[in-house]
């Protein structure tokens, strides 16, 4: 049953960075203390605003990586070489610094732990962040909904949360994890590097009843994956997509 609470109008609030955690050579997680945080749902995002001394400001959206119920809010930021905001968040921000953010935002690209149905998560690069919030929520709540994550990355070094995902998947047969390496593979990988395809997405099966699909990542990836699923007979109405674009996304 979708939550129907009426929310207040969204306003900016000041959060304090309490810690940062390196995830990969180009990404780190920012841990935030947000006074009065109202709670959120897995898959939602926040808008982050940076203001320069002369008043110039830039704003971007970042998916919340932490599950609902945690005491701090976590964002995982991938540094984009030509980004305006991401290099600041990935390199300059330090514990003790403050950040303006507003949220949580978005009621459509969310997963509720009360939903028992199977879930297919398809991530391209940093698109794994909101899907990781869903996986962490599932683990936290003890949900037995069958989860399958297909995670496409360029090379092993760029995969986010690798250790945590390996641990969760090893401990729980209900979480299935499949990597797709598009540029270079780990040593001994049985397949050559290549893009996502129908076989990997569907494991040769039709959609199980009640399947919900979440696809997140760069626009090209999201379109390719969604098209492959629809062509394989998956119901387009059950596929929710979140494209990371040059604005509104994560540059």
């Amino acid at each position, binding site marked *: 049953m979708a939550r129907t609470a009426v929310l207040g109008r969204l306003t900016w609030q000041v959060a304090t960075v309490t810690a940062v955690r390196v995830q990969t050579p180009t990404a780190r997680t920012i841990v935030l203390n947000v006074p009065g945080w109202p709670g959120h749902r897995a898959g939602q995002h926040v808008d982050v605003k940076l*203001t320069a001394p002369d008043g110039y400001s830039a704003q971007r959206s970042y998916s919340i990586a932490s599950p609902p119920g945690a005491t701090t809010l976590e964002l995982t930021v991938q540094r984009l070489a030509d980004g305006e905001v991401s290099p600041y968040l990935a390199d300059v921000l330090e514990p003790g610094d403050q950040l303006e953010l507003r949220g949580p935002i978005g009621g459509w690209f969310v997963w509720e732990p009360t939903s028992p149905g199977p879930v297919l998560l398809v991530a391209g690069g940093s698109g794994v962040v909101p899907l990781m919030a869903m996986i962490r929520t599932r683990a936290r709540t003890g949900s037995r909904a069958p989860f399958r994550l297909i995670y496409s990355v360029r090379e092993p070094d760029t995969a986010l949360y690798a250790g945590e995902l390996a641990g969760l998947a090893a401990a729980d047969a209900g979480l299935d994890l499949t990597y797709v390496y598009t540029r270079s593979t780990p040593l001994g990988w049985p397949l050559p590097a290549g893009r996502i395809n129908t076989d990997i997405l569907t494991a040769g099966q039709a959609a199980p009843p009640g399947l919900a699909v979440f696809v997140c990542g760069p626009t090209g990836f999201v379109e390719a994956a969604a098209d492959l699923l629809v062509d394989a007979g998956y119901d387009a109405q059950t596929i929710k997509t979140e494209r990371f674009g040059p604005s509104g996304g994560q540059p």
Partner: protein
Amino acid sequence: MAIVSRGFGGRRRGGDEKLPPGQYLVTDFPVLSAGPTPRVNLDTWELRIAAETGQSRSWDWAAFRQLPHEDITVDLHCVTKWSKLGTAWRGVSLDTLLDGVATDAEFALARSYGGYTTNLPLADLLGGQAWIAFSYDRADLDPEHGGPARLLVPHLYLWKSAKWVRSIDLLTKDQPGFWESLGYHNYGDPWREQRYWGD
């Protein structure tokens, strides 16, 4: 209650060029659009000028490219605050296209393939102030930047330079276009910083 983000400067490069108020200089050419890029077939492309009398004239691509054209170098100022100086275009002047058109109209509405519209006083299209441009930087105008042809009116904010232009209607009553009907200034002079209604 904006806080200042320690160590954040933003992407802008302040120039020593004289820019309109609130603008910053860019060296790339940003692409902004309200929808998918129209793909216009040159075989079916048509430019039409329609007067309030009902009289109109039109050119297909071949006829349009036969018209006398000019090479111009102009500065571009986008309402989203970027400015790009010294851009080189080739186009047909609106003075050429409107030459001999009988009209009492004071206003114009430019319409684009894809549905975009923008309005401006007819006087701002005349006197060497406006072109239908088909070439940018000595190459065919890219669809992303409005090709095959766009309106170019550099003395106003760039949203008035309608990409993928298909017609210009001459009107006796002003008709606000796509952005002008949603808060953007009806005239849009960058030097008076006329971005929004009431500015």
